[in-house]
């Protein structure tokens, strides 16, 4: 790692405008994370058009700020209302909400903020140490390796789609198919269906806004009956700093372990902060010797495990995005889109081509973590009120902002129609239990996969080269292994369910199609614990 590049990056990040971008990003990220149903991914989508007018580093810094702020912000609603602000803060509720009910909301929030900041910084350090190593390794990647790697990422994402392996695979393939609309790598026009607007293909961003943001907003409309009010504790909050520091010191091993779990899970495409959350909580509970029975009833260790792991995911998630060009989650895909818009292609060689930019990512994560600490500590009473914003006001406002964001991309209303069409498609897919992350990854990586395949075959028309080249062969073997693993898990899950339903003697109900029902019942359970 060249010190000159680090200093150059520090100069860029500490420039007043970039610093302001990060802080604004953190602020809006925390707000987005605080409002149940309005995820920070949506905030990233809305911020996307603002990066057009910025340079690549300030633009990326703004997005990193939102990302880090959002990962942490979910704890506020989770702790105060018992409703997760973001999916990655579900586990925070287990101990955060009981602490609030026991009259210690400020202590719970303080522990969450502290663990979140430490987790973010530890994740950034791992990224700083591992990123360049993987980056150097990828310099040897040819089109064979890139094709096999993308294939592996797609199978991994589809395989991690819970019990819906078939639907996950379909989703990923549909994403690849959408990516093929427009001009083929060989130069011919395809799948334009006589529509001149489709000649240039479908821009990933409006599709992504529709699939992810609009579909989520529509689900919010369904769920708007769920009352998020009813707690009087949100207005009077002052952090008990010495007590929180003592709690964090007592949980220092837990912080370190959960941060490492989060960082590792973050490197896996689509595994995400949600998985890291549960794994860390489980480990923390099993490692607790003195009072394991207090987990779930207001143990500081539960909050620490959840928040340290979900925040450290950021550092891990940037590793495949920067070094391999494989976004680990939807948020990473949006940030990758912003970089591509500025003419920077993440992936092999980025460390050599753009060393200052890469170092700026590490530094902006750390600066954003400090921003989270300052903003959440100082503005906690205000942020607590934000959690009560009614969805009836939020949803239409965000829809208008998504329309502007889509339009600003190419200055054409066709892109807003795309948002609407893919919003409807995304909504129905969610209802059908089809996971959306594989589709988004397929959409982002489909073009690269086809291009690499064709380039590889142009160089050497022997298909066996994909297997005989060691790295490519390893990725293909991993792709196969991930499929087999997912298949076995699916079969085991089916057997378990059949066993359970035969034990209960009642026919099984599958609520996956209606996330709202599942979530509502979960929330009811949590709030009555």
């Amino acid at each position, binding site marked *: 790692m060249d010190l000159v590049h680090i200093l150059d990056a520090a100069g860029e990040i500490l420039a007043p405008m970039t610093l302001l971008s990060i802080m604004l990003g953190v602020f809006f990220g925390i707000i987005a994370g605080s409002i149940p149903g309005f995820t920070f991914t949506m905030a990233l989508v809305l911020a996307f058009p603002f990066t057009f007018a910025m340079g690549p580093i300030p633009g990326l810094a703004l997005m990193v700020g939102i990302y880090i702020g959002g990962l942490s912000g979910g704890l506020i609603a989770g702790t105060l209302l018992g409703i997760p602000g973001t999916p990655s803060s579900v586990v925070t509720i287990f101990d955060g909400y009981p602490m609030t009910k026991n009259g210690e909301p400020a202590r719970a929030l303080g522990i969450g903020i502290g663990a979140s900041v430490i987790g973010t910084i530890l994740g950034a350090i791992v990224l700083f140490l591992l990123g360049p190593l993987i980056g150097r390794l990828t310099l040897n990647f040819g089109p064979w390796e890139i094709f096999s790697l993308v294939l592996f990422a797609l199978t991994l994402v589809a395989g991690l789609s819970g019990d819906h392996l*078939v639907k996950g695979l*379909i989703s990923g393939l549909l994403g690849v198919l959408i990516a093929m609309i427009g001009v*083929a790598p060989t130069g*011919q026009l*395809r*799948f334009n269906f006589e529509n001149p607007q489709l000649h240039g293909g479908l821009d990933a961003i409006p599709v992504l806004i529709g699939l992810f943001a609009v579909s989520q907003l529509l689900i919010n409309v369904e769920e708007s009956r769920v009352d998020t009010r009813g707690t009087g504790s949100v207005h009077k909050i002052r952090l008990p700093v010495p007590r929180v520091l003592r709690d964090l010191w007592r949980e220092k091993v837990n912080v370190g372990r959960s941060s490492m779990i989060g960082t590792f899970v973050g490197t896996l495409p689509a595994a995400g902060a949600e998985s890291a959350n549960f794994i860390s909580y489980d480990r923390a509970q099993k490692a607790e010797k003195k009072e394991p029975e207090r987990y779930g009833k207001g143990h500081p260790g539960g909050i620490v495990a959840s928040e340290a792991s979900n925040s450290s995911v950021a550092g891990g998630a940037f590793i495949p995005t920067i070094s391999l060009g494989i976004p680990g989650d939807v948020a990473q895909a949006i940030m990758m889109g912003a970089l591509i818009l500025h003419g920077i292609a993440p992936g092999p060689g980025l460390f050599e081509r753009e060393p200052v930019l890469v170092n700026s990512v590490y530094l902006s994560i750390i600066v954003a973590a400090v921003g989270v600490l300052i903003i959440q500590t100082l503005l906690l009473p205000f942020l607590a009120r934000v959690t009560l914003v009614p969805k009836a*006001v939020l*949803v239409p406002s965000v829809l208008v*902002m998504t329309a*502007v964001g889509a339009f600003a991309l190419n200055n054409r209303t066709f892109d807003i129609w795309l948002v609407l069409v893919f919003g409807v498609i995304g909504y129905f897919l969610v209802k059908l239990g089809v996971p959306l992350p594989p589709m988004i990854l397929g959409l982002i990586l489909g073009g690269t996969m086809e291009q690499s395949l064709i380039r590889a075959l142009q160089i050497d028309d022997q298909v066996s080269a994909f297997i005989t080249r060691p790295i490519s062969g390893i990725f293909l073997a991993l792709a196969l292994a991930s499929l087999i693993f997912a298949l076995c898990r699916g079969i085991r899950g089916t057997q378990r369910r059949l066993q359970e339903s035969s034990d209960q003697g009642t026919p099984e109900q599958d609520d996956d199609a209606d996330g709202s029902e599942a979530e509502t019942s979960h929330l009811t359970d949590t709030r009555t614990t």
Partner: protein
Amino acid sequence: MADRVFAVGLMVLVAAFWRETAELAGASGGSPVGPAFVPRVVLALIFGLSVLLLVQSVLQAEKAVRMTGISDFLKLHWRVPVLLAGFGVYVALMEGIGFTWASVAFLLGSFALLIREYSRGILIASAVIAVGLPFGLEWLFESALNTFLP
């Protein structure tokens, strides 16, 4: 039932795209494969998986996603299709009367649709947002980002 409808829908989609690939040229001099090669592989895989989904939904009927009556769904969540239709009208209006006024109309209409309990505070807040947000966005995009909205 919903899985079956989804699988059949996918098959129709595959057929439509496959038909399009028939019109594409084959492999040319520089490239060993033509523009239809990869899409056909993808389409064949989607078709195969759709068949699998169809079979699964028949064999494991209790695991498949159930299709509750559309009328029941509409009765419970009628605001969703109305909001979507409103968004469509909004985009169409945007080309006619411009972003700002179309947004004001859309926001006022949507607030009226979604707000279930009115109070003086909510009425004032929604009116301020309905007017302030479109004008604010227009100002921001046109003066700060040099992007002219429709």
